[in-house]
């Protein structure tokens, strides 16, 4: 071996090993989890804006009774695309973006366990989004809602490509999410910093772990449902065709076996963000760390036992209604534990009302209100009364907007200084919060009442004089206020990235490892693999000193490698050489895109070209991995 490098030479060598050339072509091959994480965040935010604009158009149509801005078909496409985009292409990928960016930093390593697969996840996600949105070009967007019930979705009743765009894009996206979830699980279990026992890892990592396990077992069921549907539609099979013995309820079961865990797949990373931010701005460790971690895991498990509560109105036997009603009430317990943990943390701490913290409070209030109406649905007779009314719409927007969008937006403001190296404007942050918070409640609170008065969801207009008009006008005004708040937030984000004041390593005085490195972090994240022993390394005197003064062996600046640690204790196990940059992830995603367009148009030739390209890419991948 050559002479030892000086620290400066060592950092330059690490930069060389882990960085990417600043050309477009090289960037397309990046496998850096921070680059991929940021791509996820930006892409998902764009989908958020697109679906938000659709919501505004719908609210405009519904401002007064009998308006003719939209025809029924366009309205169907809008609410279907709004729901599908928000659930599948915004909420889940946005949180995958946070996970990608933060998990390796928080657990003190240099990348995800499978960096090239990580790039595959992103590119397939983007491809699935492009695939879905290309439906707009043919005015053939999905028009059967985000849960796409058969028999309306059968070929017989939906002749166009609309439903095929939906089902195929969801299958494609499922590949991306599955690969991503597996990557998170292996990363979190085997790549934590030396000494970081699983019982000491950040709660955000717990949240991502619970979510990823739920994804691994929930997504194949959604994929099954959509595969069966496409076999019916494209190849003349009869799964959902009653005339040939098929069973339409099968779709509902499969969809909701996935669909209810999915609610928590969206919620869990968001509460992970809350459990990270609330303690920082309360100036103390979270109360009941272990309880919160256990609550996250048990939520993920119980979420698989409540799907039938979406089907209380389908004529199932009373015993199953009773069991699933009870399970639906049971699942509120872990959420309650977490809420009390956050409240206790704030109560015994000293709360700083920064913009991210405001968003956390907005989450708490909104989510608890959504939880209340959720408990109401656990009562079967009430559920059967309120099904398919605006009460349901109001409920799940409280849960999803409250439970997911507030933490996401607060998380963006919280980690922006780390990602951009710059501080955001607290005044704009507060304005955006109050506009979004006020606008949201103005929109959705009145819709509870409209729903109780009997207003059905998913209808493009309504009759006047039924007492629904004032609630609808209020809701529309609220929607535009929310949009104004989002606009202020975007101005804040862009302004910060362009010319915010330098943030320094740790502007918030936070406890987790991502704040121990520079803002933005270098490509290799940390110069060295420093042992940590505390749950709150930066609040622990000895961990902090070690992190600041570490001049021990910076891990092998001559190799592209990381330390692997044991699953429970986090003891150092071995070194593993990580794969480098590659264009094959992008090639694989493009090949799959061709294959899926082949399926869409039932064009054998295009599908064959896509399939051959997929196999060729995988073989190329194999060869690339074997090169010395």
């Amino acid at each position, binding site marked *: 071996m050559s002479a030892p490098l000086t620290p400066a030479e060592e950092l330059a060598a690490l930069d060389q090993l882990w960085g990417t050339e600043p050309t477009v072509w090289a960037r397309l091959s990046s496998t850096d989890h921070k680059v991929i994480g940021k791509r996820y965040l930006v892409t998902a935010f764009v989908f958020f804006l697109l679906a938000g604009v659709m919501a505004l158009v719908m609210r405009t149509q519904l401002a007064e009774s009998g308006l003719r801005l939209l025809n029924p078909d366009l309205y169907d496409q809008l609410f279907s695309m709004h729901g599908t985009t928000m659930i599948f292409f915004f909420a889940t990928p946005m949180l995958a973006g946070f996970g990608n960016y933060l998990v390796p930093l928080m657990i003190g390593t240099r990348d995800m*366990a*499978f960096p090239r697969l990580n790039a595959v996840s992103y590119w397939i996600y983007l491809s699935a989004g492009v695939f879905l949105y290309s439906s707009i070009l043919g005015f053939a967007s999905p028009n059967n809602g985000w849960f796409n019930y058969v028999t309306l979705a059968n070929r017989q009743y939906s002749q166009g490509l609309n439903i095929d765009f939906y089902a195929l894009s969801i299958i494609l996206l499922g590949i991306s999410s*599955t690969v991503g*979830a*597996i*990557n998170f*699980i*292996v990363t979190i*279990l*085997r790549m934590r910093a*030396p*000494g970081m026992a699983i019982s000491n890892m950040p709660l955000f990592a717990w949240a991502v772990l619970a979510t990823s396990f739920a994804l*691994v*077992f929930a*997504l*194949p*069921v959604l994929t*099954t449902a959509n*595969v*069966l549907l496409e*076999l*019916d539609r494209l*190849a*003349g*099979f*009869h*799964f959902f*065709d009653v005339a*040939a*013995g*098929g*069973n339409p*309820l*099968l779709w509902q*079961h*499969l969809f909701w*076996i996935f669909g209810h865990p999915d609610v928590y797949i969206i919620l869990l990373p968001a509460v992970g963000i809350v459990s990270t931010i609330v303690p920082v701005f309360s100036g103390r460790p979270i109360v009941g760390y272990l309880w919160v971690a256990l609550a996250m895991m048990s939520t993920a498990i119980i979420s698989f036992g409540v799907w039938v509560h979406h089907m209380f109105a389908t004529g199932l036997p009373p015993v199953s209604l009773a069991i699933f009603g009870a399970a639906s009430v049971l699942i509120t317990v872990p959420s309650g534990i977490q809420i009390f943990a956050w409240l206790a943390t704030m109560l015994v701490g000293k709360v700083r009302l920064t913009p991210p913290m405001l968003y956390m409070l907005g989450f708490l209030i909104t989510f608890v209100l959504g939880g209340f109406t959720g408990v109401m649905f656990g009562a079967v007779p009430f559920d059967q009364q309120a099904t398919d009314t605006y009460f349901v719409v109001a409920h799940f927007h409280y849960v999803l907007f409250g439970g997911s969008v507030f933490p996401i937006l607060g998380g963006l403001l919280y980690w922006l200084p780390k990602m951009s190296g710059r501080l955001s404007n607290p005044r704009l942050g507060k304005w955006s919060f109050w506009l979004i918070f006020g606008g949201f409640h103005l929109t959705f609170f009145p819709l509870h009442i409209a729903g109780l008065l009997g207003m059905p969801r998913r209808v493009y207009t309504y009759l006047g004089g039924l007492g629904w008009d004032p609630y609808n006008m209020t809701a529309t005004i609220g929607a535009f206020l929310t949009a104004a708040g989002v606009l202020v937030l975007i101005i804040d984000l862009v302004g910060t990235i362009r010319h915010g004041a330098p943030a320094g390593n740790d502007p918030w005085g936070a406890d987790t490892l991502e704040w121990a490195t520079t803002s933005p972090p270098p490509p290799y994240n940390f110069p060295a*693999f*420093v*042992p940590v*022993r505390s749950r709150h390394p930066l609040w622990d005197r*000895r961990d902090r000193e*070690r992190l600041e003064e*570490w001049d*021990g*062996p910076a*891990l*092998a600046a001559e190799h592209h*490698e990381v*330390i*692997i640690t044991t699953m429970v*204790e986090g*003891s*150092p*196990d*071995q*070194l*593993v*050489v990580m794969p480098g940059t590659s264009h094959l992830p992008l090639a694989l995603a493009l090949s799959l895109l061709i294959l899926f367009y082949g399926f869409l148009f039932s064009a054998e030739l295009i599908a064959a070209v896509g399939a051959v390209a997929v196999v060729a890419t995988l073989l190329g991948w194999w060869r690339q991995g*074997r090169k010395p």
Partner: protein
Amino acid sequence: MSDTRFGDSGLDVHALPVGVEEGHRPLAWWGTMMFIATESTFFAALLSSYFFVRANSAQWPVGGVEIPPLGLAIPNTVLLLSSSAVAIAAERALRSGARSRFHLLSGMVLVMGASFVSVQMYEWSQAGFTPSTNVYGSLFYTITGFHGLHVVVGLVFILTVSIWDLRHASYNAERHLPVRLSFLYWHFVDIVWIFVFGSLYVFEHLAS
């Protein structure tokens, strides 16, 4: 847990082994296991769909079609399951450094797997129904078809590592992770068949 596990002098990263396989579970092993977990759920969902539709049908199979006979399926099952045993022997051979024995045995796995697929396709051609006959046909062909597809994928994995080793002599007693993972996948495919065979053949013949 001790606070001074690494001392304050720090940990000696250079003393750690690099990318060892024996006695350790490499990252790729964990990834493959999670992949198998998600794939198993896919088959569980397909078989649950089968039983759900079956339980809610007045007559099964729908429209009085004939369930495929056991005469071919039983020997075919024996063939597939014994290929797993051969795969175990092949991996053992590689671990003990007997490379030509490894090549012979993995070749045997390939032949057995390919025969299984051929018999399955012959059985399809003999069945008195197609996927579009009714929901029973759809379920039968979808479940056996996806299983068959997984067999083919497993064969491609084993074929690839075998050809690679023949050409480059890349694997030995210490380093053979791709072989290990390909066989792991092969065992998964075989275990899934036990459930498919048990549900679509054994159960149906016992029930009728």
